[in-house]
């Protein structure tokens, strides 16, 4: 994806290429793997697998939605800091802000988007009936 982003930036300029810096490169692979691993785990334990893997992948997607809010903070910090200070320091600060704010900003976003508390989300307790996350954790 880094190569593709670089090629797009070369052909179409940094304004189009920049948008591809937030391309979901990891999520498709990780969601598919999470579903597969969860199914296999439940099958080994002799538990009916109907929907377990999908529920784990849905939880992964919810986490990604939370993380993407912090990703906006990373992008804004990089945009403002890269021209102003040392580039390494700018990227380190942007990365630190992403790391630090991914839970709190993500929690607020979770509240707004999914109607559950951010703290609850970190304890994996929100909407247990719909997602079955308590069962996922317990098993």
């Amino acid at each position, binding site marked *: 994806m880094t190569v593709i982003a670089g090629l797009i930036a070369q052909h179409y300029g940094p304004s189009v290429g920049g948008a591809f810096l937030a391309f979901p490169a990891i999520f498709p692979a990780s969601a598919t793997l999470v579903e597969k691993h969860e199914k296999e785990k439940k099958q080994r334990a002799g538990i009916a697998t109907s929907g377990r893997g999908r529920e784990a992948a849905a939880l992964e997607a919810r986490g990604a939605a*939370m*993380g993407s809010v912090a990703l906006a903070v990373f992008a804004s910090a990089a945009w403002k800091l890269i021209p102003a200070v040392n580039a390494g320091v700018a990227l380190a600060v942007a990365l630190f802000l*992403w790391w630090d704010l991914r839970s709190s900003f993500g929690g607020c976003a979770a509240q707004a988007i999914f109607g559950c508390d951010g703290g609850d989300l970190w304890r994996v307790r929100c909407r247990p009936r719909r997602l079955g996350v308590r069962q996922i954790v317990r098993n």
Partner: protein
Amino acid sequence: MAELVYRFLVGGAIVSLFAAIGDVLKPKSLAGVFAAAPSVAVSTLSLTILSNGKNYAALEAKNMIAGVAGFVLYACVCEQALARWKMHSAAVAVLGLAVWIAGTFSVWFLASRW
């Protein structure tokens, strides 16, 4: 060509690092946060700073915000499709990329006209 190889190696290493961290973390909502890690951004921006300069990289970072808006939309649609509509995760993740493209370039177009 050498730059592309360099991008491939450095980008692949950083993306793999973030993916590996996400894979070992529990609960899954926390692991999911790493699915939205700035892995591509960190590798691409650092290489762009070296090859094209700081202002070019800052412009890329500014336009990344449109991509992030698309990512928020993409993740929300994926969550709903998986939890509510019971769709298969691989299909959701791949078909959802159309949502990412639509969301990203809608925001990008609106921002460029504003």
